[in-house]
């Protein structure tokens, strides 16, 4: 998967259906015509895939709030193991510890 898509949504995520599901997340967060993108996902990937994709987005709407609300610490081991990944995706900008 090409994590550059996190910072630049025009980048091809490099997986089957990646563009389609990127568009779904974008539209779910207010950028794009959600109803139109949902129809596209349903037409191309099927209703079952659309429902499962919506469920994953919904789950992380929950998990992200929980993690932020409890001040979930990211351990040193995890930080060390994910350094390259975080750099590729530009994720350190979200680190609340600065």
């Amino acid at each position: 998967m090409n994590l550059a898509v996190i910072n630049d949504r025009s980048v091809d995520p490099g997986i089957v259906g990646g563009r389609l599901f990127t568009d779904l997340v974008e539209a779910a967060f207010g950028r794009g015509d959600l109803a139109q993108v949902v129809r596209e996902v349903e037409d191309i990937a099927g209703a079952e895939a659309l429902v499962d994709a919506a469920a994953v987005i919904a789950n992380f709407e929950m998990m992200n709030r929980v993690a932020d609300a409890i001040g979930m610490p990211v351990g040193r081991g995890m930080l060390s193991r994910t350094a390259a990944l975080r750099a590729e995706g530009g994720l350190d900008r979200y680190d609340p510890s600065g």
Partner: protein
Amino acid sequence: MIEPSSFPQPVRHDVVAVMQREWDRLARPGATLTGGERIELAATVRSPVRSCDSATPEVDSRIAAAVRIAHEPATIDREFIDGLCDSGMRAAEYVEIIGLVSRLAAVDSFHRILGAERPALPAAVDGEPSNDLNPMAQSGRSFVPMVRGASIIYALTLIPDEHEAMMDDFHDTLYLSTTQMQQPTSPRAITRPQIELLATLTSAENECFY
């Protein structure tokens, strides 16, 4: 009432069941809040006009916590938590608010994406809070006490019911169980890479570092 006919598409029965169970849970007394207080908080975070100018400082701090978790979770920091503590909010009350607000966000998001009408909040069920807390929960590096600690999967373990709702119901059904997470394959209609792409992009949209 959340049922299969609530959605334009055929939705897995286990997903519908989780959401209906949440609606039932939302209406009932929790560990620290009455059913009426839980529904009031849910209505507040759904309202386009939110005010912290309520009857008591205790209610104000509940609303402040709920609104922040719902709408600006990435801005929650130690200073905000200290303010809640100074207002007299107990850790268990905060954990209950995290649980109900975060799951409400999931339910509403799921409905909105699928083009379904947002379900009306249920009527509150009478009764007193259970005060059912896990005595093994301990303070650690996060803002709330938890059992075992330092993992998102134990985040709400101070309140057993909240932990079960988050992990056994929502996480395992909408995403993957912890066992399924260890497997490279997907039990869903989308592939594992597609699942992780959706998870990653959603977390980026929410500016969630974890």
